[in-house]
């Protein structure tokens, strides 16, 4: 029997999920900005203890590695690194765009998942949903709002996340021919889908890595955050 712990701290809502083999056991979400580090430890302890799972039983962690909030990603990844370092768990990196695509899992066909990357840019990837299973069609990338708009297929369902950015405008011109699912109004259980993604590859040892090889996928250099030199 294998437990899979799912952790997603890439956006405003923190998600923790727990699977036992391929079966969902529990999911926890918390929608509060800038407070993941304060709650991640209690959230994991809580989800484990109410399900009578010991931390030492967790040998598989599925964790969102990006793209998303730089600080948010680091909180989840640093936590997963510490956890795995202490108990030898293996980790499975999950794309936050892949997690987002699950919002459209009841549809059949093309799904575009997109995150507001600020400065008029978008993180995006395309997927296809076949019988409730989400398959990837393009790699995670960062592009301008215009490139994003042009890449949208007419029959695609679009799942978007503004990452709590109230003034976000990159998704306002998505046309009415597309089904648009803004994550703010169609919330998903991020931790649950993270864990389920991990659970689906439990048998594939190549999908699991040591914590030391776990790295955030920022999709952006830190130069984006470097202030212009002052005198």
């Amino acid at each position, binding site marked *: 029997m294998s437990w899979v712990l799912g952790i997603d701290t890439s956006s405003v809502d923190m998600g923790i999920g727990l699977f036992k083999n391929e079966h969902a056991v529990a999911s926890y979400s918390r929608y509060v900005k800038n407070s993941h580090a304060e709650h991640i430890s209690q959230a994991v302890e809580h989800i484990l203890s109410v399900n009578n799972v010991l931390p030492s039983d967790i040998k598989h962690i599925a964790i969102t590695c990006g793209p998303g909030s730089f600080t948010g990603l680091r909180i989840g990844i*640093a936590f997963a*690194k*510490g956890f795995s370092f202490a108990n030898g768990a293996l980790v499975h990196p999950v794309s936050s765009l892949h997690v987002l695509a699950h919002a459209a899992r009841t549809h059949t066909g093309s799904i575009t998942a997109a995150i507001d990357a600020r400065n008029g840019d978008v993180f995006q990837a395309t997927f296809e949903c076949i019988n409730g299973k989400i398959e990837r069609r393009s790699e995670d990338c960062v592009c301008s709002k215009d490139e994003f708009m042009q890449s949208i297929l007419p029959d695609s369902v679009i799942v978007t996340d503004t990452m709590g950015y109230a003034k976000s405008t990159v998704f306002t011109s998505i046309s009415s021919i597309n089904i648009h699912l803004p994550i703010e109004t169609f919330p998903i259980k991020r931790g649950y889908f993270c864990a389920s993604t991990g659970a689906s590859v439990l048998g594939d040892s190549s999908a699991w890595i040591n914590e030391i090889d776990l790295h955030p996928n920022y999709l952006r250099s830190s130069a984006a955050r470097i202030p212009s030199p002052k005198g």
Partner: protein
Amino acid sequence: MITLGIESSCDETSIALLEDERIIRNKIFSQQEHSLFGGVVPEIASRAHLDKIDRLTISVLNEASIKIGDIDLISVTDSPGLAGALLVGISFALGIHTASGIPITGINHLEGHICSVFFEHPQLRYPFLALVVSGGHTAIYKIIATGQYECLGETVDDAAGEAFDKVGKLLGFAYPAGRAIEQTAASVENSSNPISFPIAQVSKIPGLNFSFSGLKTAVKYYTSSKDDAFILDNRPRICAAFQNAVIESLVNNLWKASEQTGISDVALVGGVACNGALRSALKNRFNNRVYFPIPSLCTDNAAMIALAGYYRNQNGLSRFPRLDPSSSL
């Protein structure tokens, strides 16, 4: 008792192991990326911490032949500092804590600096005064007992180390410039014609406060009125004048603090405590009742964080880590 110390508040990633108060290992990885920018870039720092923290921890434990199960306490810096940088250390520490059940305590970085004096001077007794002078902080504390502090004064603008770094930039030194300024000042050949820079009096707010931004501006005016060749020739004199002004203001306020409180034992901690001229000035003034850590323990390191955690634990003062980037002691 084995304590694991974790420090990531600024641009040093550091992991340490203590057995009681003795350092088993204290590894410090200083990020070099920032020197290009003349100061620490938060996003670069946070990324570099995450890249290093696990490898550093593994190598420290391996070198010490200590296993996770041998650790009795995790002690992690949770304030003050760069939020994104602190969060890497805090989250990593919480991950270890959650997986292993090892007790954890959050530590104020300044409390760590103050405790660093006990490695060399375990005989130092409370109460004593501590002058904390680093790149981010300049303050005088009355240390009453473990975890009990009273701030007697602090800088109202730049920290002393920051002043060293800014003036260093004006004079063409690489960041951080503290050491280079000290060495250059020491090479003054002829002290008969010294430059003098003003020492700011901070009297608007009560307390033994400091101000260094005016001093920096004075150096700026001075250098901008001279040509490059003159500045290059006179760098030793400028460095000496600047350093003397900083030292005088630090020593004077600390002296006043000692008079006000009647406490004559003084600890000098933080990165600027490496400065030899400051050390001897304090020794002279305080009749050798001055205590400092060895230079390698003056700058940011995890051993001091582990020691502060050990003391808190021994006194029942452990507390769960909570991020508070702008807090003081």
